[in-house]
């Protein structure tokens, strides 16, 4: 399976342009000064760089911000329901960072285990992921602190590794091999030296990330200290928006809403977040999470606790976007460390 080639920038671009014929290609592109994943129509729109992240993750191409579950029309005394159309053209997510690809795997765990989500599954089935390993860390990055790696392969079908000049292309799955297909004609095979770039980058970038790791044993501590007063102290700054959840590669919560008029419309599902009071508001008027600190705690614990067993990864993939974009400068890793310290020091029951 593991086949590797060395590509020049021009060859990479040529391959990308070729993909547009058969696939909907989603790649980082700039719009009004913001770099975001979007559907490109020409390879020159794509920003494929050795480092740097999009403003938010590509999850919306598998789990859209809003999607119709069914459409309805009323006419001549009848109600007609119609299923939303499923994607026909296969889709490639191109230039995804390792953290974001891991985020997609975390989404799979939610939408594909147990009862399979039909719409998500159809998109996932249709999607090939081309990741780009990182040659440098952004200030907010902390993938290595949560078990990830700047050159991680999780969730990746094809991996691009920035060389000093050009790219190393590694095929990691059958789907990835299909994507490379005939294109490899004039590519030169990678040398052992090229392949060594991978561990070298991992070492270099990991060193740039100056975060101490989040210990897996902390999950239990956090759960035990669920009622600890520290949550109140740590969440004082939280303004209760949902930037953290919406830019997060692994946050998967949604709400149902109805959009339409008396003649036609749709039942939609849209992103929602545990940081909003309405998220948990019951029809009865009861709200199990009335305070900001309960909601903030929920998000932190859902990333770092509530895991089935010890081997299960954290639901945080360490992209650091929530840290960089939080209006109040809250830092989820510092929060976890501070909470664990306080719970251990003062006992799980302190300041209930």
């Amino acid at each position, binding site marked *: 399976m593991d086949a590797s080639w060395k590509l020049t920038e021009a060859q990479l671009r040529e391959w990308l342009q070729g993909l547009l014929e058969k696939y909907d290609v989603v790649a980082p592109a700039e719009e*009004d000064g913001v770099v975001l994943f979007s559907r490109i129509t020409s390879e020159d729109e794509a920003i494929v760089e050795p480092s740097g992240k999009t403003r938010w993750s590509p999850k919306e191409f598998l789990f859209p911000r809003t999607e119709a579950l069914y459409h309805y029309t009323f006419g001549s005394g009848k109600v007609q329901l119609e299923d939303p159309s499923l994607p026909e053209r296969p889709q490639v997510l191109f230039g995804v960072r390792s953290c974001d690809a891991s985020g997609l795997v975390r989404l799979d765990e939610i939408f594909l285990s147990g009862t399979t989500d039909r719409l998500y599954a159809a998109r996932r089935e249709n999607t090939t992921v081309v990741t780009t390993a990182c040659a440098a860390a952004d200030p907010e990055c902390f993938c290595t602190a949560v078990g990830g790696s700047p050159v991680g392969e999780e969730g990746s079908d094809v991996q691009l590794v920035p060389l000093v000049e050009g790219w190393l292309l590694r095929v990691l799955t059958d789907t990835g091999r299909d994507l490379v297909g005939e294109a490899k004609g004039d590519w030169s095979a990678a040398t052992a030296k090229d392949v060594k770039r991978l561990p070298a980058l991992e070492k270099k970038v990991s060193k740039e990330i100056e975060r101490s790791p989040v210990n897996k044993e902390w999950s239990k501590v956090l759960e035990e200290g669920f009622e600890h007063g520290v949550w109140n102290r740590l969440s004082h700054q939280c303004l209760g928006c949902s930037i953290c959840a919406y830019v997060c590669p692994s946050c998967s919560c949604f709400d149902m809403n109805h959009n339409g008029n008396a003649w036609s419309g749709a039942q939609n599902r849209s*992103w929602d977040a545990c940081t909003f009071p309405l998220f948990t508001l019951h029809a009865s008027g009861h709200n199990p999470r009335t305070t900001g600190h309960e909601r903030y705690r929920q998000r932190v614990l859902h990333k770092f606790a509530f895991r089935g067993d010890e081997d299960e990864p954290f639901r945080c993939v360490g992209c650091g976007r929530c840290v960089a974009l939080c209006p109040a400068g809250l830092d989820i890793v510092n929060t976890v460390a501070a909470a664990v310290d306080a719970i251990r020091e003062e006992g799980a029951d302190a300041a209930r």
Partner: protein
Amino acid sequence: MTEANVSVARSETGAAPDDWQPHIVALVCNWCSYAGADMAGTTRIEYPANVRMLRFPCTGRMSPLMILRAFEQGADGVLVSGCHPGDCHYVQGNLVARRRFTIFRSLMDFVGIDLRRLHFAWVSAAEGHKWAKVVSQVTAAVREAGPLPSFARPETWDGVDLPEVSGSGPEELDAAQMEAIQANLRKAASEVLSAGRVGVVIGYGAGSLADQTTPVFVSETADCEKLVWGEGCRNNLSTYVFSALEQHERVAVVAKTCDLGAIAGLVREGQLGRDQIVVIGVQCSGLRDGSELATKCLACTGDPHPVCDLVVTADGVQESCQDPSEAALDTPDARDEQIAHLESLPHDERWKYWQRQFARCLRCYACRAACPLCYCSSCIAEKHRPQWVPTSIDSPGNSTWNIIRALHLAGRCSGCDECARVCPADIRLDLINRKLALEVERQYGRVGLDPDERSALVDFRMEDSEEFIL
């Protein structure tokens, strides 16, 4: 209006189909215009049948959301009609509405709605003829404007290059001066705490990233060392005053020049007693996001304003007790050129400019959360019986949200730019806010820092301008 009709109008992006008929929603008041329309009917006056009427108690009851709702649902034009000034059955409903619609109209114009689609009229119960005339006039204008443009994100469009903003910003301070300010700030905080003037000081503490700060709540004098001062002190801390007041009788808040308008606004709107807060104004050398000076700083002096209780500079800490009614924030703005540039573009370019921005909106409501003056305990975006703002994170709900957010702050927004700073999608909310501030000032004069003044849109004058009203 049926969905079928709407889709006919929308299916064409260019010229309207031959059989296209404009759909116009008329919001009318029960006492005058509805009766006027009735009069037109009973006197058998003929007028175009493109208008669907909705009856309200008063134009004062009509929220701009209702107009936005009509556009969302595919109306090509909207007409609002009520009693003549002085004839309102609720005395002043139409006078307050007149101001609201003046400002709303300028906002709709700014986001690219052709004003031939949006009309306002005074029609009394006796004016059947006028009603017919107004409807004919409005229908002709909407027909000329054509079908409503699509709310969808413009896919192939080059965008607008706004002129670069420039300005020198506040006086630059060297490291020693910044250090001195920080030391004086800590001293000031420590003094108000130890003298028992306040229970807590809301200030800036070091953040986890190099240029970031995070709000800190200091209630022990020993903790005053946590307070920092620098170019990363971005938050408008008055947002946190309410939560701090839940636990303390009086709180101190560290404020930059740009934060003071919000504090004055909260006092003016009765949300905050002036005696509940001690404002520590600190000399500011401007904020930076990365290496760039923030846009709002370009035309700012950075001087702590006299309305503060304490003024912290590199030289020391002073008590200040100037009369706020004499103080007016001078707010020239580097962005005015960008606004003028947008206004010079045709409507459809402006519409595309904003629709592409709104299409990026994630509806994270960070703009609302960070805004000190968005203090409603329950936001209109959360009202769902009926659902005023569609919760789907797409068009046209995104437009509605961004427009109504701005409008609810018209005449109130203090220009602290927090909404634009926190927006993860970089939507230029600051341009919208600034545009509204300019329009309110042009029409009704500037509201300064005096807590005794009234916000422009809850006030009215009989002689307010109404040249656009039919």
